[in-house]
């Protein structure tokens, strides 16, 4: 039996239509209804374009004032205390002036000035080196300026630790669970083999709360939107002399420091 060109095209056309139709039918039958769902941000979330902080060290008079800040952060984020500097995991901690601002050291400065403690944390840089080197995009820059960690993706290669000029990242050499004094059941812990750091309190901002360190700082840390010219943080940076850590490296840190207090700012 032979068919002519016209018959062939008819059969081909009909079978194409049937084929496509049945695929669609099978697909729609398989659908469970989950496609109807949508996601959205929490309406209580604080909207902002670029996460920023000003740390006014003159407001932290005693060691206890600073400890309160570290404690507030580390307790709600389940940061373990491993008890030795080699394994240390830290999100917010203390450095001396010399280590905080190595470019601003000078040989004639007083010993007290060089030894002055500073509160340091992840700078949530605008051009973060850690994000550029991460091979799995486990660390990434969010639209709101937070340099975020996706622990699910981290493979523990520690490129980011090598890249970060501020030492803001810690590696979990062992299971941190036994070293957490009191677990916050609302927040996950980390596991052995991932890198962690300050996440800008994204989980608190999402429900309209300020970062934990800001709340515990008693006004010593100003938090706000660096892209909003009317925000308190921008007015502070605009009117007073501030320092950022290692600006020459070009990572554009979003954490600013007020050094001398009011009288010589």
């Amino acid at each position, binding site marked *: 039996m032979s068919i002519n060109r016209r018959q062939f095209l008819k059969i081909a056309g009909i079978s194409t239509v049937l084929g496509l139709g049945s695929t669609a039918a099978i697909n729609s039958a398989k659908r*469970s*209804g*989950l496609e*109807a*769902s*949508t*996601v*959205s*941000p*929490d*309406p209580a*979330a604080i909207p902002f374009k670029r996460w920023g902080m000003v740390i006014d060290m003159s407001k932290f008079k005693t060691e206890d004032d600073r400890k309160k800040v570290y404690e507030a952060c580390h307790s709600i984020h*389940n940061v373990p205390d491993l008890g030795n500097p080699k394994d240390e995991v830290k999100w917010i901690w203390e450095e001396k002036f010399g280590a905080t601002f190595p470019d601003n050291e000078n040989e004639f400065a007083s010993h007290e000035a060089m030894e002055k403690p500073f509160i340091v944390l992840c700078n949530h840089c605008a051009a973060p080196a850690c994000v550029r080197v991460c091979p799995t995009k486990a660390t*990434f820059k*969010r*639209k*709101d300026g937070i340099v*975020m960690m*996706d*622990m*699910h993706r981290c493979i523990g290669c520690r490129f980011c630790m090598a890249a970060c000029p501020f030492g803001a990242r810690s590696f979990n050499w062992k299971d941190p669970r036994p070293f957490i004094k009191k*677990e916050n*059941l*609302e*927040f*996950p*812990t*980390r*596991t052995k083999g991932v890198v962690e750091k300050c996440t800008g309190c*994204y989980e608190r901002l*999402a429900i309209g709360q300020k970062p934990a360190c800001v709340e515990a700082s008693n006004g010593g840390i100003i938090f706000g939107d660096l892209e909003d010219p009317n925000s308190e943080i921008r007015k502070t940076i605009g009117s007073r002399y501030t320092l950022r850590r290692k600006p020459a490296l070009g990572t554009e840190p979003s954490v600013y420091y007020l050094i001398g207090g009011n009288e010589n700012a």
Partner: protein
Amino acid sequence: MYNGGKIIIGLAIFMAFVTFPFYNNFGKANAKPEPKTDTPAIKEVQAQLGKKEVCIEPKAAMKGEHMQMLNDWRDSVVRDGNRIYVASDGRKHNMSLQNTCMKCHSNKKEFCDKCHNYMAVVPYCWDCHIAPKENKS
């Protein structure tokens, strides 16, 4: 066949060994895992909504696709910052394993583990996420 007797005996012993799991378990009912959904939190929601199936999506969808859903939730919350899930029935939920799923399903051992152990899957959720503290009763 040389040494036919020995070979046949050997084969019979071999077959007996290989098929041991089959005839040993033959006729025994294999208990199907039955995850329990009788926590106080779930009962409360059931009373509130006046129906039995109160999970965020229909039971069949949850059974079959909760892993995909958790993956989607994770990406949505961690990467996009969207944490409200509008379910197909219009209810809104905070997308959080610890603060939403496990607040209702506070019986991980009787719920999650039941099927996961049966299927021999070991999801690594609990390496980081803190499982609800359960009373050992």
